[in-house]
């Protein structure tokens, strides 16, 4: 897993009334994230580590850090599987090799 998750730059997205709406340009698929997932999404900027984001979620929702870390990891897995996060740099290199 990418320890510094980063949103796929090809996506269109907007936070609308607390939730986040994401559009994939390739297939026009619409994704929705709830408020908690939106917080994680907003910090998936390639600069915050998974641990940084877990701390933000832990503080924002008053949950234990371990629980927050588990939730963040799960969401990042899901977002990655849907192509909503950029591939980790090392994967890009191996894919191009």
């Amino acid at each position, binding site marked *: 897993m990418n320890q510094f998750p980063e949103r796929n*730059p*090809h*996506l*269109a*997205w*907007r*936070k*609308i*009334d607390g939730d986040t*709406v994401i*559009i994939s*340009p*390739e*297939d*026009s*698929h*619409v*994704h*929705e994230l709830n408020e908690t997932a939106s917080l994680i999404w907003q910090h998936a900027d390639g600069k915050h580590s998974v641990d940084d984001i877990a701390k933000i979620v832990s503080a924002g929702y008053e949950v234990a850090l371990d629980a927050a870390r588990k939730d963040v990891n799960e969401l990042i897995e899901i977002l990655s599987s849907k192509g909503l996060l950029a591939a980790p740099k090392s994967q890009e290199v191996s894919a191009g090799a």
Partner: protein
Amino acid sequence: MPSTPVMDRLIRKTVERHLPWNVHIDLTYRCNERCVHCYLDHEDYGEMTADEVKGVLRQLADAGALFLTFSGGEIFLRKDVFELISYARGLNFDVGLKTNALLIDANRAQRLRELGVRKIQVSIYSSDPAVHDAITKVPGSLDRSLAAIRFLRAEGLQVKLACPLMKQNITAFREVEALAAELGVPYMLDLTVTPKMDGDRSLLALRNSPAELLSVLQDRNLNARMFESPGEGSADGLATGSATSSGIESSAYDDVPCSAGHNSCYISPYGDVTPCVQMPKPAGNLRQQKFEDIWYGSAEMIRVRAARESQLRVCSTCSIRSYCERCPGLAQMEGGDLLGPYERACELAEMNARLAGVPNPVSAMREKFESEGIPRMMARASGLVQLSV
């Protein structure tokens, strides 16, 4: 086109909260074609600069806009068009373009793909160059547009053909359908021909009569495809083409005449904001006012936003309302009343109802005029049936 449950929910939310999530910006009225049915004046009276447009985009992003359509005129006549698309993508907008594609080559197609443009709509009037080029008044324009579409497709970009139908190309829809199939893209017929922006109604002579449109609306293949749904969770319903409609049907709009002023608006090259391109009265100007002040506070936006289906004079009692694609903007422009009926919509609704098997369909407007012994309205008709296929 019907919506999906996901889009339905989102549309409902944006309508309820009055979030301007779908914005159409004409970057220029200048054009390198001179289409016979075009309602625009192609002079440049002082377009917004790139910096002004960027400022508008920042305000729109802050206001919650997501879907952005850059149109014109011909957008690629602006030397800063890629700078503006890039800026919009940097603000995470979903960007769609409307273009005649004459200025798109392989390099530009690649650039558009790299920038993450989601959809590009190109007007094609016929597969016969003689017909297409006679409408655009540019010799060779069909070949150039088709070459551009192939460049765009080679990049994997989503392209949609828009085919406005008028007297000059009434029989073209089947060949455009075949062309779309060959190119591997969807297409859309648009039966709308509107008055010019200055009110000149001479263009309405180009409209086909309801009787002439019968062969189009009776086409089984076309009708079958009209009712195809986009996939679950798809935003394709917003891949619109008509100048007059978002092209997406949703139960979220049940109580409002259309999306204009509720979750969508139009911005001219000069910064005028209107609820829709078909509602020419400016609600405000972005060179003098902030977008949010216009969107939430202008009298025109509030007036349009207040309209409800149940308030429609005459139309709310019409027995064939469900067959009607009434456009509030055209009702204002052609009938003089945002809430009133207009003859073209009534004629087409009667034809649609008849085709659906309704015996002797009569619109409420015709009923009213016949009962009062008034001859057919003098106002000449507009065209409004958008067929998304």
